[in-house]
């Protein structure tokens, strides 16, 4: 056998949960590891994706578990998900968890961190961590991460404030009541200032309705068409360790769809709210800076770098300076300077681009790279072939093939694999296209692995691979 003469590289496995509806920011977040660890072999494994037997003995130097996996913790299937790929994490040199929205169902997250023996936890919450992670706080390393970062590359060119058609624009989701009163504050703030601005004669486009939200690049285009936007830190004020309050609130709202927050609080969580404040910076801070939109923000600390009246227009918590804010909105020259200053602090400084996320997650954890690993090479090959269907042929075939497996081969495992599906147009078409594009072997392997998979047999969900054509 020829000796392996390739230079040793760190083996980094990122476990993710991409699905057809994942946002571009989640994909950018995942790809940042490949982009900013150029000397490492970074591979992406979906938590649902089965691993062939020859790959199961891999020993990665580092496993990173992304927030989209951990956000499944409230799913009833979480006990099955927790077991998936746990052996791989057990053999890894180090394990990093990237948490988000860890202010609810936090006990499930804390228990998972202990169960997987996580070494480092990244969280956007920097207050009351002992409440959220009562077990992990004693032994794990915690680092603060943001919920969004600036993507590397040229800063987009956007029109100056005076050439924009909308004075004040924002989209804010009405947050569910089980997150507490603090979570409602963002929508209340946006509606309050929108009403005041409209009354003062400004052109306003602010909405809290889901159907008014913008997807993909349309959101950035909208932001870049607004002179001002409004915001504050996001977060929650209700501690709900395993999500029982969530269940109670959902049940109550199903029976009383028009109930207001105060009524829901009285019925579902009396006396429990506002005992904590779990807050985090919103990624919109960066999006607005990139779009060159002047930000009206609640006066508080933003990463220690934004100064009121220099980088943003401050709004007091009790709205007592609303007139001052509205007057400032008429001074476009001054506001244009605020925009430039915010862009310098948040974008040009490079302090908040994705390389910071990767450094925060992996810094100091990658020692000497481990040696050649046959199982790792087999995994790389397997993941490449899996992603090929999606990347080179098309997402429609990838998704339809997995739906076919879910519907025909897992729901009714005794049904023979191929010939009998000629009677069914949907199944027949998918199989024909798979054959036509030479992807039948991939399909047969997937059927074979998924048919005995405890998670796949219970959940008719599909996964998406991280695109292999981008990110280095």
């Amino acid at each position, binding site marked *: 056998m020829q000796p392996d003469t390739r230079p040793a590289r760190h083996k980094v496995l990122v476990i993710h949960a991409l*699905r057809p*509806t994942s946002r571009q920011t989640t994909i950018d977040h995942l790809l940042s590891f490949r982009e900013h660890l150029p000397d490492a072999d970074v591979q992406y494994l979906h938590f649902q994706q089965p691993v062939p037997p020859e790959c199961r003995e891999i020993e990665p130097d580092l496993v990173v578990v992304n927030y989209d996996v951990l956000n499944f913790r409230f799913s*009833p299937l979480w006990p*099955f998900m927790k077991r998936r790929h746990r052996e791989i994490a057990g053999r890894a040199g180090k394990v990093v968890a990237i948490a988000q929205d860890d202010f609810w169902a936090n006990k499930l997250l804390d228990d998972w961190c202990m169960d997987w023996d996580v070494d480092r936890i990244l969280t956007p919450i920097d207050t009351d961590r002992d409440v959220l992670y009562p077990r992990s706080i004693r032994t794990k390393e915690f680092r603060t991460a943001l919920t969004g970062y600036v993507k590397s590359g040229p800063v987009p060119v956007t029109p100056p404030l005076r050439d924009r058609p909308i004075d004040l624009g924002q989209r804010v989701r009405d947050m569910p009541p089980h997150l507490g009163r603090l979570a409602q504050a963002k929508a209340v703030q946006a509606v309050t200032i929108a009403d005041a601005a409209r009354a003062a004669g400004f052109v306003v486009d602010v909405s809290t309705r889901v159907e008014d939200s913008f997807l993909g690049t349309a959101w950035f285009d909208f932001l870049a068409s607004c002179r001002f936007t409004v915001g504050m830190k996001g977060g929650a004020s209700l501690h709900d360790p395993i*999500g029982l309050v969530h269940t109670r609130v959902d049940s109550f709202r199903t029976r009383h769809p028009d109930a207001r927050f105060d009524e829901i609080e009285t019925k579902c969580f009396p006396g429990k709210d506002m005992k904590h404040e779990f807050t985090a910076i919103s990624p919109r801070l960066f999006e607005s800076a990139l779009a060159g939109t002047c930000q009206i923000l609640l006066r508080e600390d933003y990463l220690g770098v934004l100064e009121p009246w220099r980088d943003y227009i401050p709004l007091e918590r009790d709205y007592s300076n609303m007139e001052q804010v509205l007057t400032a909105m008429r001074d476009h020259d001054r506001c244009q300077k605020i925009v430039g200053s915010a862009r310098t602090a948040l974008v040009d400084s490079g302090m908040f681009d994705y390389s910071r996320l990767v450094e925060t997650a992996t810094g100091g954890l990658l020692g000497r790279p481990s040696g050649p690993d046959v199982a790792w090479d087999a995994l790389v090959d397997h993941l490449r072939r899996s992603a090929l269907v999606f990347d*080179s042929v*098309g997402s429609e*075939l990838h998704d339809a093939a997995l739906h076919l497996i879910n519907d025909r081969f897992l729901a009714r495992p005794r049904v023979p694999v191929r010939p009998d599906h000629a009677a069914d147009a*949907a199944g027949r078409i998918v199989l024909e296209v798979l054959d036509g594009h030479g992807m039948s072997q991939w399909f047969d392997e997937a059927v074979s692995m998924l048919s005995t998979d405890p998670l796949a047999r219970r959940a008719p969900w599909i996964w998406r691979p991280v695109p292999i054509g981008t990110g280095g």
Partner: protein
Amino acid sequence: MSLSEYERVRLRACGAVLTSNRRELEWASSQSPEVLGDDLAHEIAAALAGAPIPGESRLVRATTLLPAWVQYAGQRAVLLFPGLARRLLRGTGLHHQRF
């Protein structure tokens, strides 16, 4: 070799049938019958007639009357029976939330 536009439309329509996803089925039913073909168009119409409406399942609404901890424990207990779990997810349309 990447998919043609014709294949893309047909495959997405196949996915809609296979998942009984109402929103996707409505999209599929608005596509040209020449692209879909008679067999697939027929399957789309049949699937749309029986597709669950997420949030309007009588079973799901009934469980909201139970105490939260009973719902919590019940949702997890169902998973001991994979076939039942799949049928409930598909029959109520709850699984579409993850697509």
